[in-house]
């Protein structure tokens, strides 16, 4: 596993993203108490509207928690504030090149632990959720979100709630108030289908949401601020898509495939709220793409042409993170692309319209119609599209216990995959991280046999 860290250390952008995620609590405290900004809780990648207000900060509530950050990473964060990230990470690379084992080993540990630290915090949220009374019958994602709101929801001034096809999601959002969370609930309905003048209704719904945000903010809504943010978030999406489509489908990776999975996992988690700072996130993801390309151009990395591409999805509602390690051990490489599957990586079409709200409505409606889909046919088409575009050679479907929405499309999906893509697929049951690893290993062992 030290290879993983060895590769990661050369991506300063990943270190920054990881640090920004893990250090969210301090960052958000600073924003809230020192800069008097207001925190707006979001779930799923629905944070964009919040960025239309300079004094509002979107946050996926788990980031308000304290993470166990190795003191060395804390040092890195502090040092970077003084010297800049590039210089700090170059220095670390230099130390590793010198082969100073103790120090590099410490760094290895830090990096490897980033994802597992986040994941164990998710498990902790799950436990808090269950202890607080949510039925164990719900999916991992909802139980964790519930736990996040129970433990940290009170720090937010509002929750920005978007309705989608998943009734558990909608009801979970309603339950936030019942938890005793004093924050304001702002609802934006995305209508189930795009019929008649639905888009106009959605524009109006978003405008009403904006009015509610305005009541919290000390600033008035400005088209310009929102448009500027959409430009930033579109740049994020473009870089993200390039990483998924250009880099992950190539035969030469800028790093070990296991490292690559961890980077994709980190992107997936941090994309919810862009680590509460979209501009910083854009800079990091742009740099990440550059760093990846730079290494590929220099021939630094790993030839993965003989490793079958296995798409693991969905992972946004919870998945066993060991899955990618196991597949990599068994000679494969893993691709993650949930947000593209759900059409959250499509551009917000600001160049087509002068009104950014209208553009955002089009974006949301597209995600709803063609990504999440109110209809399983649309949803499964989306899976097939992603698998096809990624040239996936196999699909691992994560069947989350208690998920009545996405997980329930597998029968339909399996048929479509067999008919349209002719690639193998397997469904893995998931309830909680770390709970079922041996069974996952056995099933994947049999699955990966097909590629030998």
């Amino acid at each position, binding site marked *: 596993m030290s290879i993983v860290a060895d590769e990661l250390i050369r991506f300063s952008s990943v270190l920054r993203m990881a640090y920004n995620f893990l250090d969210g609590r301090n960052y958000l405290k600073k924003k809230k108490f020192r800069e008097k900004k207001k925190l707006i809780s979001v779930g799923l990648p629905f944070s964009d509207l919040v960025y239309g207000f300079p004094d509002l900060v979107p946050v996926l509530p788990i980031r308000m928690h304290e993470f166990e950050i190795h003191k060395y990473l804390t040092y890195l964060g502090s040092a970077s504030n003084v010297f800049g990230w590039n210089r700090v990470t170059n220095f670390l690379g230099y130390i590793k090149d010198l082969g100073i084992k103790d120090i590099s080993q410490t760094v290895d540990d830090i990096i490897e632990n980033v994802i597992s630290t986040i994941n164990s915090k998710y498990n902790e949220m799950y436990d808090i959720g269950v202890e607080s009374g949510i*039925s164990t*019958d719900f999916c991992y994602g909802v139980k964790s979100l519930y736990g996040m709101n129970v433990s940290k929801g009170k720090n937010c001034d509002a929750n920005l709630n978007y309705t989608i096809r998943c009734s558990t999601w909608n009801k979970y959002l*309603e339950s936030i108030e*019942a938890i005793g969370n004093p924050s304001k609930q702002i609802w934006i309905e995305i209508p189930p289908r795009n019929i008649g003048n639905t888009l106009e209704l959605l524009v109006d719904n978003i405008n009403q949401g904006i009015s509610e945000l305005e009541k919290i903010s000390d600033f008035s809504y400005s088209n310009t601020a929102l448009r500027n943010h959409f430009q930033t978030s579109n740049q994020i999406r473009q870089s993200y898509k390039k990483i998924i489509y250009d880099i992950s489908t190539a035969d030469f990776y800028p790093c070990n495939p296991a490292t690559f999975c961890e980077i994709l996992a980190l992107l997936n988690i941090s994309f919810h709220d862009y680590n509460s700072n979209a501009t910083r996130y854009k800079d990091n993801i742009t740099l990440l793409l550059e760093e990846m390309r730079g290494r590929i151009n220099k021939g630094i990395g790993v030839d993965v042409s003989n490793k079958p591409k296995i798409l693991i999805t969905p992972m946004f509602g919870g998945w066993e993170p060991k899955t990618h390690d196991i597949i990599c051990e068994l000679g494969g490489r893993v691709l993650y692309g949930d947000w593209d599957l759900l059409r959250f990586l499509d551009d917000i079409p600001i160049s087509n319209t002068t009104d950014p709200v209208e553009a955002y409505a089009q974006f949301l409606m597209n995600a709803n119609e063609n990504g999440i889909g*109110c209809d399983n046919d649309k949803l499964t088409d989306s899976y097939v599209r992603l698998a096809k575009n990624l040239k996936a050679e196999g699909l691992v479907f994560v069947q989350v216990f208690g998920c*009545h929405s996405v997980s329930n499309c597998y029968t339909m999906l399996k048929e479509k995959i067999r008919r349209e893509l002719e690639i193998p697929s397997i469904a893995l049951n998931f309830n909680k991280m770390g709970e079922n690893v041996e069974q996952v290993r056995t099933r994947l062992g049999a699955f990966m046999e097909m590629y030998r």
Partner: protein
Amino acid sequence: MANFKLLSEYYLSLKEKKEEGKKVVAFMSHDNIPEELIDAAGLIPLRMIFAGNDELMDASHDFLSPSTCAFAQSCIGAFSIKPERYKFLELIDYFIVSNHCVSDICASEVIAKYFNIPRLNFYVSYTKTGNSVKYFKLELLDLKKQLEEIKGTEIDAQVLMNSIKKFNNFKKKLLEISNTIISGSQKLKIFHKAMLYGPDILPELDNIILEQSQTQTSDESKDILLTGCSIFIDDYLNSLIEEGGGNVVFFDTWVGFNYYYQIFDEKVINSTKDSMDLLAHRFEKNIYGDHTVPNFLERKVSHIETFYRDHEKKTGKKVGVINHIIKFCDHMSIMSSHLKNQLKEKGIFVLNLERDYSRANRGQLSTRIEAFLEMM
């Protein structure tokens, strides 16, 4: 046995109508499907209001995961196994895919796709605002169009208005029945039959009211308000409640209050020119339904509390609340602990009764119900 008679008679009646050239449109029971529109198109609405069992649930696992709502599982199972008692399901011509909850979407899609029943789409807004009512009207217009395609001609506005009035009178009669003092099992039997047959049995309901006004329930039974998920046809839950010494005096569920309280005021009917506006208006006023967010919990608590106080005033008896949660029901489950806590704070006893349709549960359910009734 009684249900077997009901179901076989229903089969014969439906078959007769089919022979007359009528078509059947089925849907998983919920309170926002405009059955008047189906009726006005000359079609027969059929609500899926049938409980499950182990076999029916198991049969659905080829299509959906076992962690899907037991009712949705059973609906699929009914099409998959085709039990003799549900023979009338073979007569279904169309199935409405709707989004009361995501299990409704998934199960309805499975039924339409894998059992070759042409589907109609009708999706309902998730919130209750001016815009969501406007969206609901768009869906109504879309459904109307789909039904007109089946019918081959437009649905006449006057015919639709007549259907609305017919169903309105029918619901008023059910409300009347709900207010009688007959036992919970008798009420439930009537609701089941009524919701299966629709307004065609209106004359029969008059006789039932007359007959039942002579009967009285035992004063010793403990009064129960049943909320949460419905007790469907073939479910033994109500028998367990009565065997334990309880009597459901109020069915605060789909089969029951959620259906018959959606009555139009005569003034509203007479002053609204567009029938579609009336149906949209009903969606707006359906504040006790569990589909939309937010405020479901708040309204549910206040509604139950009002009933509790009124009942106590009227009869001098306290009402216990059984919150019936069908396993993996998104809507009822997530709010159950909050509902219980909030009602408890108001001094109302609540039993959160979660179960699926497996036979093995019967003993445990019985024990829990008995213990609850004793505690009352």
